[in-house]
């Protein structure tokens, strides 16, 4: 086996720099995010990395008001599953969007949420 096309670590390093990276199956065209060894659609292993545009629409969302330990100081905060332009989805925090304006179908754009030691996926206004 060769090395993974994109590891989770590489995904978040690229995300920290502002770029979302998915993988596309060279056999059937399936897009996947996060990376995996075998294509769930055709069981082949012919991945190519694909840079995504970063824009999409909210497929579903929630506002968390009772948080786990380590996030209790952040409530209320929004989490959404975003359907990206290329057809693959990704989950992230929604930031800089008034909570009362959140809606399914709302256009949003990827932005990295960066702290000293961690990068996570965020989406802001399109």
């Amino acid at each position, binding site marked *: 086996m060769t090395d993974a096309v994109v590891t*989770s670590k590489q995904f978040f390093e690229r995300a920290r720099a502002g770029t979302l990276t998915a993988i596309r199956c060279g056999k059937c065209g399936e897009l996947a*995010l*996060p990376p995996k060894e075998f294509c*769930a659609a055709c069981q082949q292993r012919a991945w190519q990395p694909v840079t995504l545009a970063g824009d999409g629409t909210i*497929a*579903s*969302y*929630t*506002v*968390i*008001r*009772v*948080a*786990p*330990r*380590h*996030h*209790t100081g*952040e409530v209320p*905060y929004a*989490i959404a*599953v*975003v359907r990206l332009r290329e057809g693959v*989805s*990704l*989950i*992230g*925090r929604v930031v800089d969007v008034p909570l009362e304006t959140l809606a*399914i179908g709302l256009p949003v754009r990827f932005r990295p949420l960066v702290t000293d030691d*961690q990068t*996570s*996926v965020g989406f802001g206004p399109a």
Partner: protein
Amino acid sequence: MRRVAVVGVGVTKFGKHDRSSAELFAEAARDALADAELSPASVQALYYGNVVGGETEKQLHTGPQAASVLGIPTVPTTRFETACASSHAAFRHAVMEIAAGVSDVVLVGGGERVLNVPTAESTEYFAYASDATWEQPLGLTFPGVFALVARAHMAKYGTTEEQMAAVAVKNHRHGALNPKAQFQKEITLEQVLKSAYVADPLKLYDCCPFTDGGAAVVLASEEVARRRPRAVWVLGSAAASDTMLMHEKKDLARVPTTERAAAAAYRQAGIGPADVDVVELHDCFTIAEIVATEGLGLFEPGTGGIAAEKGWTSLGGKLPVNTSGGLKAKGHPIGATGAAQIAEITTQLRGEAGPRQVEGAHIGLAHTLGGNLATVLVSLFSRD
């Protein structure tokens, strides 16, 4: 394959306890063995469900620990962890061990203790059933997972917060009839609708509580079961899995794991959804009951909320669901939940459910879901 029967059941009172999960399981197992009129020495294996013992009790290797506390330390024991479906997964594997002719009597059960830690801490531990790289760092909670399902279901089918609230009201009404339930009081639609949001659109009263408790089921081969009183037969038991990640689900308004596990269990049993008389299903949140009734084929996709609102799933309705009070009112000691659901179905099919008895119940279904909709177990039972 040999036929398998449930010959004994036991459940502790659900709620807050000052005993370990192993002690809670052991109490339930003691009652289940007495119910089966079998001695501890007859048990040939223990299949055990426990989820957050490593976190709340600093306890791993909980299978042998549970067997030791029960007093059968030399019995081969395995702990199952499929999040909230753990003891139902344990049940399925125990059924296979007996069906395959390896053992004649197997004890199945689970125990969980979570009310010994603060809510923010237990919320964190339950969130460990979400993906640690992609979901937990966002602060996604277990209610948050089902809130994503609820929003999608509302958008696709027009399901309302009132319909979800009707599930809570109904399950509390049932729970009031169950002396083992954590909540034995009725609530009103208005109380549910006015309760605070936990993860929009889910409110406090849409959510099951944190619960300590234990449950146990004794399984036996046909040869043993024929000599026991009140055996209930296992007609089928199936599992299904799916991607953990919420964003990889093709349609957040449906639960394909429930659909696939149900199809396999119905096929094993040679029956269909129309044959089922009583159901215990995984209502960790009100929306979870709605999507489960649809995925099990009991109601058409998009009509699960209507079924609750119209009273079709109430005691006295066309298909009573969660006569025990469900996870919502009976409580949800996660590692014990599947075994407790099977205990309720067994009690119903024996005709021993007292004020919550479904008259003439002949075929029962138990459905248990584990974390992020990624694991579902469905089993079917008959009284003869």
